[in-house]
């Protein structure tokens, strides 16, 4: 039998060959290189609660780090090396305080409690505020106050206050005054700069913007069930549009490019959605094992009760009390009747956004603000028409829209449940992983999905190739 003599060289070669084959390297694939078709070296984010990273009823450093502008900026950095994004970060800790989950009620609603904020330096309590005691928490000044950050999202800032002098001056921090502590911490002490002036100053050095503002104008009215805040009439919506135009004029000056996002439908927020009339009735009937209907105060005749319709919404903050026995005076005697489930103990107007006198106003205000196209004389242009005025590129080619419709691309889809990388996202608080415990702002993963919606819009409008965020790697709560 012939014996093969192996030289040292060929022996090494055989071992190396075997090793190479055995390691069986994974087949090569090139990931696409991110490209961007617009200058994003200095990105400015303008907006309110969503833009700031407000989540679960408070602002914390973690929430700010997972704000959608910050997530968007991180993805843009792949295409534009060296582009920074400054935010007015709070110190690590509980920030302004926030809501955390305690447990679930028997009916499946989350119960939350407030965690105290470490960044709170003093509070101003207004016991006589419409809708109950209002607490304004003044926060420690941002470490970079004096230099305006690139994230100018201010929680709770309505468009009606963008020109309020002293909005950020804590001398005005008294009960009931127009004062915003989140804006105050961005500015040096005792400054009377208006928000519009701040945007103008910051925009001077910006090359790209996102604008997502307007919801906080409506939230006081919605959260109080129509009791507080200005009723969103057509005049109210017109004023919103005029104020938005003031900001957008500044942002788009000099041909600056950006993304304008329309407001989502108010009924897609769990604040309303969880208490949709017909579904609530069915759920309560299953929970209590009876066939009692849900009754609300008649919007035009408060002393009368009417059965809830599928277009009326009970506020999520009031849901836990529906069905509980409360004392009601009936024909002179006091009886314990289930709240909202007996026609003699209807849900108060403050707990309900009814379709005929309140929700209709909110819906038409949002639609007006988003879509008003200038065909009617003397009616200011809505966001869609403004985007066309500023010649922003088309985002939705099928409709020719130049604004990002967050309803179509995100909120509506989440309401109908979506699956991203094998994980389901829905509009249910906690389990849905999208909305946070305050029933309208988003969790870090929700902000990731919102950032991806903006990225898809940028990719379409500016012919770019920005990678999306891997949403499932973000925390579910902050």
């Amino acid at each position: 039998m012939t014996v093969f003599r192996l030289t040292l060289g060929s022996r090494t070669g055989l071992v190396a060959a075997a090793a190479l084959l055995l390691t069986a390297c994974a087949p090569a694939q090139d990931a696409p290189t991110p490209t961007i078709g617009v200058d994003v070296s200095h990105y400015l984010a303008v907006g309110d609660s969503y833009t700031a990273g407000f989540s679960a009823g408070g602002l914390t450093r973690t929430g700010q780090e997972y704000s959608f502008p910050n997530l968007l900026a991180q993805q843009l950095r792949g295409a534009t090396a060296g582009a920074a994004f400054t935010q007015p970060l709070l110190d690590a800790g509980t920030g302004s305080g926030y809501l955390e989950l305690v447990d679930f009620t028997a009916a499946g609603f989350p119960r939350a409690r407030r965690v105290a904020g470490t960044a709170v330096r003093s509070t101003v309590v207004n016991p006589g505020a419409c809708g109950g005691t209002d607490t304004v928490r003044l926060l420690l000044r941002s470490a970079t106050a004096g230099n305006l950050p690139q994230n100018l999202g201010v929680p709770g800032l309505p468009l009606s206050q963008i020109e309020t002098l002293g909005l950020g001056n804590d001398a005005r921090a008294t009960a009931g005054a127009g004062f915003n502590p989140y804006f105050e911490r961005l500015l040096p002490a005792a400054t009377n700069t208006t928000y519009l002036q701040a945007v103008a100053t910051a925009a001077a050095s910006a090359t790209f913007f996102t604008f997502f503002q307007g919801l906080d104008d409506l939230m006081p009215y919605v959260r109080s069930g129509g009791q507080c805040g200005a009723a969103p009439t057509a005049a109210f919506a017109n004023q919103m549009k005029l104020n938005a135009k003031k900001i957008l004029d500044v942002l788009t000056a000099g041909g600056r490019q950006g993304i304008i996002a329309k407001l989502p439908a108010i009924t897609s927020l769990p604040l309303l959605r969880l208490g949709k009339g017909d579904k609530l009735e069915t759920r309560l009937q299953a929970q209590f094992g009876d066939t009692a209907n849900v009754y609300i105060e008649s919007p035009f005749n408060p002393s009368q009760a009417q059965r809830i319709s599928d277009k009326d919404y009970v506020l999520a903050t009031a849901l836990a009390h529906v069905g509980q026995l409360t004392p009601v005076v009936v024909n002179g005697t006091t009886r314990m009747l289930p709240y909202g489930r007996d026609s003699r103990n209807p849900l108060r107007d403050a707990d309900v956004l009814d379709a005929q006198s309140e929700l209709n106003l909110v819906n038409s205000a949002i639609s007006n603000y988003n879509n008003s196209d200038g065909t009617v004389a003397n009616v200011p242009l809505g966001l869609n028409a403004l985007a066309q005025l500023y010649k922003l590129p088309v985002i939705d080619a099928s409709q020719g829209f130049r604004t990002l419709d967050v309803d179509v691309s995100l909120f509506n889809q989440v309401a109908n449940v979506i699956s991203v990388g094998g994980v389901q996202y829905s509009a249910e608080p906690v389990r849905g992983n999208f909305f946070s415990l305050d029933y309208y702002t988003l969790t870090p993963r929700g902000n990731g999905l919102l950032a991806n919606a903006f990225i898809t819009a940028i990719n379409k409008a500016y012919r770019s190739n920005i990678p999306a965020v891997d949403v499932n790697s973000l925390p579910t709560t902050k």
Partner: protein
Amino acid sequence: MRLRLLFLIPLCSGLTASAGGFDTGPQGARILGLGGASAAYINSIAGLSTNPGLLGQWGDSLTRLSFGGIGQIRRSSFVGQDTYQRTDQDLTIQPGGYFYATRGLGKRFSVGLALTTPYGYHTKWPGTWEGRSVVQESKLETYFVQPTVGIKLNDNFSAGVGFVYAFGKYTQRRALGQYDDPGAQVQYSGTGGGVGLNVGLFGRTGDNLAFGISYRSGVKLNLKNGTATAAGVPSHDAALYPASTRFSTEFNLPSTLSVGIADRITPKLLLTFDFALTGWSTLDSVAFALDASGGAPARRLTTARRYEDALAFRIGAEYQATPKLAVQGGLHYDETPIRDEYINPEFIDANRLGASAGLSYQLAAHLALEAAYAIDYGQLRTARAFPQAYRVANVSGAYRTVTHTAALGVALAF
């Protein structure tokens, strides 16, 4: 020295391979070297698993044994369509083996036994990859036991029939990505068996030309003894994912129709051609039936697979270089049963083109050493997941696969 190895680089860069479904290839070193074109090949009793009709050709007084080990490495890379992140599967070696024995009984009959591991795969993704809630690890192992009877019909024709007893083991692990805990996962594992039939015919139409036809029926693998466990689930969802519950599933392993011819062109050179049709369309969906446990009701989790029938074309050549050394070479093309719309990271497959080589060395009069190696390349496959189809868990992206198979065994005749 290093320069000479450069020819190996194309093996690892570029194309990936996928196989015709999750079959592990030819179950024998010599037929692996031939590229699997073995329906009419009688030089190795490993052909018993392909065509029981060959058994009649080994009906002389010798007892033949052939056994060995097979190792398969199938590795895929993935690039996310939206995230542009590249993930490579972890390296896994799917072990397998074969054992064949044949013996003649009288002038016309012969008996044989085949133990093989014809179906199986081991997919392992890194624990934190972007599709971890779709699948992290999935493994299937099957063992086929086939006692066979062969009949020599006349000098030229023989037929055979074998009964297939199949045993299978399946595990799957995926993360519950809706929770923050990286240890939140569900794991399914089950074992079970099934039966099937394998019939074949072999004929010699001339001194140099032979043909074989065989049909192996599908095997319904009933994995009845299974457990589904969940870990890392927050207490408020304990009813949704019970810690442990019984689960059962079944896999419809496909039928195979093989047709082949063998042509001895010169006294030293044998060419074989094979064509096989595998009936993968019986694997329509994978359903996990979970028993009720704790607060959770009995449930049925179904994932559509919609496999389609697949063809394979194989060419092999064997050259008797010296009286002791025979070398084999082969080429094959295997279609994939996986449709474009149902690409799922649990098992990646594509139409594959493969090449193989082997040798058989006669160490002694009745002992031969056999070795073979095959490499398969497949095409790029792109999966598209639709978020609004929320019941379907999947990720969008492009997959490339390479498969390496090696076998080493001995053949005895005494």
